[in-house]
């Protein structure tokens, strides 16, 4: 299992770079990871990440964008605005979760 090291912090990741151990995550780490992809993590950015961690701790899987909308009450358009391009992947990565596998 590969390990990423960022600013002296080490964490286990899968071959694509997603954290494999959710307990190695912290909001500080998320902030440092976000800086790598040009995102400044403010409260607005953190809210969906917190929901994803809370939701996945119950279901065992990373929520999809659809679930972020129906269960989390987030606006999909806003999520695309906060995390342009590949929001579901970016958010899963920043939340210290595995890549989402759901189709919808």
């Amino acid at each position, binding site marked *: 299992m590969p390990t990423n090291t960022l600013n002296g912090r080490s964490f286990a990741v899968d071959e694509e770079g997603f954290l494999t151990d959710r307990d190695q995550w912290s909001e500080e780490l998320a902030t440092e990871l976000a800086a790598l992809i040009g995102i400044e993590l403010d409260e607005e950015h953190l809210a969906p990440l917190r929901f994803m961690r809370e939701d996945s701790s119950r279901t065992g899987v990373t929520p999809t964008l*659809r679930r972020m909308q129906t269960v989390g009450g987030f606006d999909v*358009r806003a999520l695309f605005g906060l995390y*342009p391009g*590949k929001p*579901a992947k970016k958010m899963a990565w920043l939340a210290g979760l595995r890549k989402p596998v759901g189709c919808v």
Partner: protein
Amino acid sequence: MSTTTSTLPEGFILPDFGDAPRTTRTVQTGEATAVTTTTSYDGPRKMAFICSKGNLDMAYPALIMGNAALGEGVEVHLFFTFWGLDIVNKKTNDKLRFTMAGNTAMHLDDLGRVRPGLEHASVPQALGNLPGMTGMATRMLKRQMAEQDIPTVPEFLDLLQASGAHLYACRLSFDMAKMLEADLHPGVEGVISAGDFIEIAQGAQIVFV
């Protein structure tokens, strides 16, 4: 006969006929200089879906793949033509139906409880033509989709619109069906011709459903 060489006047707007090279690349190959022109698209990845069917089970493939593509940061265009127009017609898109008739891949999971192996058997075609069967099959499919948290067709269009998909209705089908613009899902950007769509789809991977 004389040929006149004409140069475009400054500021002259010429329609894009596709024969004017967009980029010209000069490649130095030893002594000779080869000039290669290319009109190929080199922008971000694009996908274009042509939705031509109005059955419930045929509406979903493009919606699901289009949504997945958006999540991958791909630019997505959906063109609704012929029966596919029913997907973006607010009067019909919550009433799309699924029929067993003509579908030899129709199995009933519950039959496995009657006799093991029966869940893999193709349901007799004649059953699909009995009155009420299409309604029953539609309800069954809708329930199965809902169990997987797949949105209904109108909700799916809302999701696609919010995710930045570009939706278009086919001009010919629209006129043939005597449809009203007011009946189109608000995510539909326009009623366009096949030619318009081909232009929009330049550089896109095209999926026909």
